[in-house]
């Protein structure tokens, strides 16, 4: 079984005597991606410095995490730029975000966008249509990771600080960018939740990731074509991060800090590795998905205007007219010069081909 690879369109051949082509697109894409990555990383470093009040609130013990987030920012911006440079993604990106920020669309269907964000990105209804068990497991991972990210990222950047004038108990204060937003008693339920947020996240992630790992070992459909680095490693990372995180709490409560330093390093290494891995593996779908909401909205608003494109042969609806135009444009960009066939539904394409075979190739077939 060989490893699957992504497909990129090959450059069209140059006719004899044609002028020297411009530098390959790949080089300019790489340059743009490097620029975007550098700009986003510098922006994040600036935000860390300013948000931590010129590093006064920055916790140096969390420095490796903060550095990893800067690498993460570079990697995400780099890969995102490369991704949206391909013809299909570029058009999705433009049409999607065009619909996303369109005032006309908002006036026409003001609830459509929040509804899609909630059902598509938040509750991932489409996963339920694939499998309820997978939906449930993914929801556990999703909310667990979201909770963990909402806590740890601002903490490592020095944006969140917790201060107390009187040790544990009442008088605890949570500050964002140095401004007090919440006062609470660290020994009551709110305090417990605040200080065990990451444990709760771990408890959510472990069963979800374990289910997927079990499925990847047992389900023959999932096993088909699966790759260790792409399909299994992310699950192992999530489990290692969650388990070592929980062990830190276990160590401090039950072992009086026994093994804490070792566990802290193990936890840190697993988190840093995962953060750096995000842009290059399966986790990149976290960054890719939001653009798909724009695409859904692009189709939805055209359907509201009854701009439906029907198959030229059987009259069955294919999709919306702007979508068909967009796809034909993508195919033109890619020099797939049979884009006129998009005006026929898949069944009619097969029938047309079958009839051509009957008429021109194997007449005895009839």
């Amino acid at each position, binding site marked *: *079984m060989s490893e699957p690879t992504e497909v990129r369109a090959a450059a069209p051949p140059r006719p004899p005597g044609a002028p020297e082509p411009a530098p390959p697109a790949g080089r300019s894409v790489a340059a743009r991606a490097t620029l975007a990555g550098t700009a986003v990383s510098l922006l994040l470093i600036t935000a860390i410095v300013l948000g931590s009040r010129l590093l006064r609130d920055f916790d140096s013990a969390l420095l490796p995490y903060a550095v990893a987030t800067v690498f993460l920012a570079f990697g995400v911006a780099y890969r995102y730029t490369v991704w949206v440079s391909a013809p299909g993604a570029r058009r999705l990106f433009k049409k999607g975000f065009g619909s996303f920020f369109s005032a006309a669309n908002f006036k026409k269907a003001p609830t459509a966008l929040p509804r899609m964000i909630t059902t598509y990105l938040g509750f991932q209804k489409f996963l339920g249509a694939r499998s309820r068990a997978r939906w449930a497991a993914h929801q556990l991972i999703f909310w667990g990771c979201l909770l963990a990210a909402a806590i740890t990222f601002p903490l490592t950047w020095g944006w969140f600080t917790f201060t107390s004038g009187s040790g544990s108990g009442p008088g605890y204060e949570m500050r964002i960018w140095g401004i007090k937003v919440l006062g609470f008693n660290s020994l009551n339920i709110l305090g417990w939740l605040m200080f065990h947020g990451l444990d709760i996240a771990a408890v959510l992630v472990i069963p979800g990731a374990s289910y997927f790992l079990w499925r990847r070992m047992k389900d023959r459909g999932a096993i*088909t074509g699966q790759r260790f680095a792409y399909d299994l490693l992310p699950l192992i990372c999530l489990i290692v991060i969650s388990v070592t995180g929980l062990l830190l709490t276990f160590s401090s409560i039950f072992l009086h800090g026994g093994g804490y330093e070792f566990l802290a390093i193990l936890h840190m290494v697993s988190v840093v590795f995962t953060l750096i891995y995000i842009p290059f593996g399966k986790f990149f779908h976290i960054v890719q*998905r939001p653009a798909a909401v724009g695409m859904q909205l692009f189709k939805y608003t055209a359907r509201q205007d009854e701009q439906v494109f029907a198959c030229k042969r059987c009259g069955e609806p294919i999709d919306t007219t702007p979508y068909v135009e967009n796809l034909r444009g*993508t195919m033109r960009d890619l020099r797939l010069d049979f884009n*006129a066939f998009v005006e026929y539904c898949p069944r009619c394409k097969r029938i047309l081909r*079958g009839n051509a075979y009957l008429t021109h190739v194997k007449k005895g077939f009839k």
Partner: protein
Amino acid sequence: MMGRTIFIDPGRCIGCQACVSACRECDSHRGKSMIHLDYSDPGQSVASLPTVCMHCEDPVAPCAEVCPADAILVTADGVVQQADTTRCIGCANCVNACPFGVPKIDLQAKLQMKCNLCYDRTAYGLAPMCATVCPTGALFYGTLEELQAERPGVQVADSFAFGDVVVSTGVAMVVPADKVQWPVPGGLPVVEVNGVDVR
């Protein structure tokens, strides 16, 4: 270059649907059949045409090229896989761009599915489900040499013309000896629709 692949001979197809049923048993898309069996002129002709993914080689996998999410991956052995479930956003670009009308889409699940040459079987040297059960040999799995040993003199074509564009594929079709030098017509340009000349 053709290696071990599927050879389709519509002239042998009796439209029994055995391939459609067997395809449902494939582990990588259990319960859903990915093969298409179309009757070109029902009521007038018994001609039927089975369609599996042709695993386009040049241009390589147009479905994957138009995919905005890089969800369709191609293995080094030339098999165009069905959409990666993590990446597929259900936009249907692949469904509508495929000149052979192969990919299917589940709009609720926002997921494309297509024939992957029964990769769970073919990767280990077994024949795909459809070719295993086809009673007439309309779907044959093997090398060209194996096909020709079984059917002396048979010729195949692995290129299809869509207007001016020729698409080379990993899956081939059986053609008469005098047609082997020419790409098989893919149905484009469309000259007539429902009896009306559209040229």
